[in-house]
């Protein structure tokens, strides 16, 4: 009973928020368009949060995702207009997208290498790469954004009536869940987060797995960057400032533990959607973006405190 309650708790808070907003603002909130809108908006940080889920389960943290988001966008857009000017062809856009994804993977892997090879704490290593990536993104075009007017598909396109970004979000969600629960790599990620010494003793190649974790986180950040860039049809060197905190919040609301070994894909999805629906609801109610921060801050603390509380209850009962 208690266990069931705990499993449902993150869903419970999400359902509660949706129910309250539905009753409050039935005409504007409870529409398919609004829901798709929320999903589309949550897709960028949601996809990055899925990568962060791996990182946090492994017992680490990646503060560089916001900066990497900007850097991937700038590199991708830079390649596109560098080759073909303001209106690149689809081939060039695909190439640019590939560069953006690759940049994400390399950026993540670099953080992972710093953590494993130089034995830096993840917080410190990614604090460094956070500044490094932001700096490169800003220096590239002297702090100016790059406009790529024709790069619209990821942000505005749709497949069978569903926005492409939402489709990608769903695909990445399913794949992340599959990797985490049905592959040896996923098992190793949990094992490392739970007890890195024991994992090493059991023959897990800890360094290699951790680099893989940060690489995956970076790759998904690159994907998020491409969607974000497409939505505004421009790459901003200041994109994603503070994104790492929203992303970590989503993962933590979903029940992951910053000390590692615990966390789920469903939890992260719920956490991301909870933040998005709160933002959306606040906007519909006319609460300013500044005041929204207050609401979100309170919800994060409350959700995590409740999670800790029920967990303690459950372990007391056991």
């Amino acid at each position, binding site marked *: 009973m208690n266990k069931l309650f705990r499993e449902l708790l993150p869903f419970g808070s999400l359902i509660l928020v949706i129910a309250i907003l539905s009753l409050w603002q039935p005409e504007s909130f409870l529409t398919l368009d609004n829901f798709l809108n929320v999903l589309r908006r949550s897709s960028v940080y949601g996809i990055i949060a899925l990568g962060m889920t791996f990182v946090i389960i492994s017992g680490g943290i990646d503060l560089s995702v916001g900066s990497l988001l900007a850097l991937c966008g700038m590199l991708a857009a830079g390649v596109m207009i560098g080759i073909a000017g303001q209106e690149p062809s689809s081939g060039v856009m695909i190439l640019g997208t590939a560069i953006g994804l690759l940049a994400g993977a390399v950026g993540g892997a670099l953080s992972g290498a710093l953590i494993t090879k130089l034995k830096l704490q993840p917080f410190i290593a990614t604090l460094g790469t956070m500044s490094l990536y932001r700096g490169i993104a800003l220096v590239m075009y002297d702090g100016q954004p790059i406009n790529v007017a024709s790069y619209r598909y990821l942000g505005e396109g749709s497949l069978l009536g569903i926005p492409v970004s939402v489709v990608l979000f769903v695909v990445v969600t399913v794949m992340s869940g599959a990797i985490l*629960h*049905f*592959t*040896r*790599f*996923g*098992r*190793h990620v*949990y*094992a490392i987060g*739970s*007890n890195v*010494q*024991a*994992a*090493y*003793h*059991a*023959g*897990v*190649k800890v360094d290699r797995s951790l680099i893989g974790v940060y690489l995956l986180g970076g790759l998904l950040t690159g994907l998020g960057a491409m969607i974000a860039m497409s939505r505004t049809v421009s790459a901003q060197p200041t994109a994603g400032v503070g994104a790492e905190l929203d992303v970590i919040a989503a993962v933590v609301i979903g029940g992951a533990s910053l000390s590692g*070994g*615990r966390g789920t894909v469903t939890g992260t999805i719920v956490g991301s959607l909870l933040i998005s629906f709160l933002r959306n609801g606040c906007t519909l109610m006319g609460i300013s973006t500044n005041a929204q921060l207050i609401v979100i801050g309170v919800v994060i603390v409350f959700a995590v405190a409740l999670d800790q509380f029920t967990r303690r209850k459950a372990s007391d009962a*056991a």
Partner: protein
Amino acid sequence: MNLSFPMESSQFVIEMRGICKSFGSVKALEDVTLQVPQGTVHGLVGANGAGKSTLMKILAGLHRPDSGEIVRKGKICSWKNPSEAIASGVAMIYQELSLAPDLTVAENVWLGIEPSGRVCGTYSKKRMLEDTLALAEKHGFNLDPDQKVENLPASVCQIVEALKAIARNAEILVMDEPTSSCGEKEVAIILEMVRRLRGAGTTIIYISHRLEEVVEVAENITVLRDGRAVHTGPAKDLKIVDIVTHMVGRDVQHYFPKREVEIGSRVLRVSGLSSSSVRDIGFDLRRGEIVGVAGLVGAGRTELARVLCGLDEAICGSVELEGKEVMIENPADALSCGIMYVTEDRKRTGLFLDCPALWSMTLPCLAQLGMKYILKLDRENEIAEETAGKLSLKWLGPQAPANSLSGGNQQKLLLGRALIAQSLIWVLDEPTRGIDIAAKVDIYELIGRMVEKGKAILMISSELPELFGIADRILVMRRGRLVGNLVTSQTTQEAVMHLAAVDQERK
């Protein structure tokens, strides 16, 4: 109790009478009496787990006895915590030192009781340095009070610990294995320190595994065995051989289901193997053979297992597996060679406590089970259940977290790895430590079944009766070296203990 006791006991600076202590169903101490005269060094010896540490923890106020009393200065004391013990002048120096490495000698000595400076809330560094120097000189030590502790060798750290205790007006110092991490030179420094402290009137209770040291420095010696004080007397009347006999005893009988197994071909040959902690190790291991590794705590037994299983780097030497030389650089290499290490420290390096119990069992074996990339959860569950059956493992099911299992069952989870992997060589490090007798017998039987199937077992154990019960041969380690390779049926526990505890070169 005898009415004349208080008068008699006035000659003792501290006295523990009839101390009993149990942890759960385990009796750690039974009716132990320890009487220490003023200004003497009292040696306390016994095998691992004989109750030395428990007795001293009671004296230091960390544990409270179930019955019995402590008499200090003619008064019965009941200390609720270590600070009350320190206030009565009893201080303990632990095996793991409790100094702050980043602070200086003086700062450590006066930590928490710093002499106050002129301005309220500050302390006088000058006075602190002077006081430390004065204290050191009074006891005949020569050290720089402004030196950072992290730069000091282990022996000098012991001196700092002692000064720290004396600065708190300690009259009785309990030293727990002060030389366990020291080389010959440092041992000499520590023994000299003990003599000087005694010369200045401090009473010392000296615990050590190194018997020759104890005989050298102590006036009186108490031997503990299985929670009882089996002998107390002046050191000059005791030979090391006598102490060993007292430590081992003759009344220990256990049930060991030893099977007669034909010893097969050689599977492992180790020669000249050295790491940062062990030197020049060489031995053979054959199919169907159980080889025990005996030695005292810190003798390098676990370190031998670690270098063999790729956890520590081998500096030189070779490992031959079935006639072929192999390089084992990490635990994954060891696994693929068919060597399975089962750790002595289950919680820290073995189990994934919060995770489903079967993870702890199957993790090293996944690739071998055809799950190198994709897991087959049903099959994994099936294998875990089947293995649990073979081990008579009691659990709430494969998905229950590992920390919901008892110690013996947690150990079985780790042993299950070797079963699933069908490892050729099992390296078991204290496989029966801290588990109940029923689980112990299960494990002995499992080991017996495995050697019948031609596996080879290397088993580290601190319990000599256990090794004599099941091992075919016993390797004895001392200070990182192999000092004995004995056929069990042709040796005695006394002989092994003697090899393990007595420095042949110093004699």
